[in-house]
């Protein structure tokens, strides 16, 4: 059961590391930013556990989240319609409600 639906506004956690020193798959450039769920990719083994060779330790819902480029990069050199889409695991996301998308 996934926590978020397509179209939901979500905020990426800004903590680093989220747990003790680890391998994470959430790039720095989206941390703390708000985006919109583009699709639900399915459920996959948690890479932060797999990085230690622990297969099947936990499974996590993976989303594709769409961000406005102009929100991520100050002085972005392109039209406001440009976007980036990126895969993020559920435990890295919290609901963003109706906050302005540029927050963060």
């Amino acid at each position, binding site marked *: 059961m996934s926590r978020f639906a397509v179209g939901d506004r979500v905020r990426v956690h800004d903590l680093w590391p989220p747990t003790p020193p680890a391998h994470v798959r*959430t790039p720095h450039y989206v941390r703390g930013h708000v985006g919109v769920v583009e699709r639900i990719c399915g459920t996959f083994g948690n890479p932060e556990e797999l990085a230690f060779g622990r297969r099947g330790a936990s499974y996590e819902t993976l989303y*594709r989240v769409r961000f406005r480029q102009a929100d*991520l990069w100050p002085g*972005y050199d*392109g039209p406001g319609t*440009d*976007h980036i889409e990126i*895969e993020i*695991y559920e435990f890295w996301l919290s609901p963003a409600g109706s906050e302005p998308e540029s927050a963060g």
Partner: protein
Amino acid sequence: MSHTHDHEHAQPRPDLDDTMTYYRVMEEAVRSLLIEKGIVTADEVRREVENMDARTPANGAQVVARAWVDSDFRSRLVANPKQAIGEIGHDIGPMHLVVLENTPGVHNVVVCTLCSCYPRWLLGRPPDWYKSRAYRSRVVREPRAVLREFGTEIADDREVRVHDSTADMRYLVLPMRPDGTDGLSQAELAALVGRDSMIGVTEVVPPLRV
């Protein structure tokens, strides 16, 4: 097989084939120990190398050309890439593929900023530049400038959509069919589709009229 497009073969770097560097020694030592311990066989390693060698951008080009000439296939390709690609004889293995359709309104480009995730089950091993620090650092922040370096100019009224392949999904860009290709066969169309257009750093250009 036609290599008129961008998959041109360069020579292996001579130092890597002729001299035993430290890491080349490590590879051979690890491989021979794994074989002795019965974890892998020499035959499996050889077959794995051959299987990956056989995966080339020409496989992806066949998929793209079929999607251009067969709109039902195109719909199936977007809805269920593994099944549709299987129909034309390519097994994409465990890969979870997303097909990104370029349209007059959107140009897609793919990167993996964290490592080098790539649709290798379809296109083979990624090109060097895809794995480079420069590409991975820049294409998320200034995609239009990077595209320009590849000779690709995207109009301001067309969205550039970057896809960062950070986790379990892999991406294939379905480029737009160029104008002036109405009379071409599916095989002729496939010959126009280069690797870089399926990553999204280039668009497919029509053949030169002679």
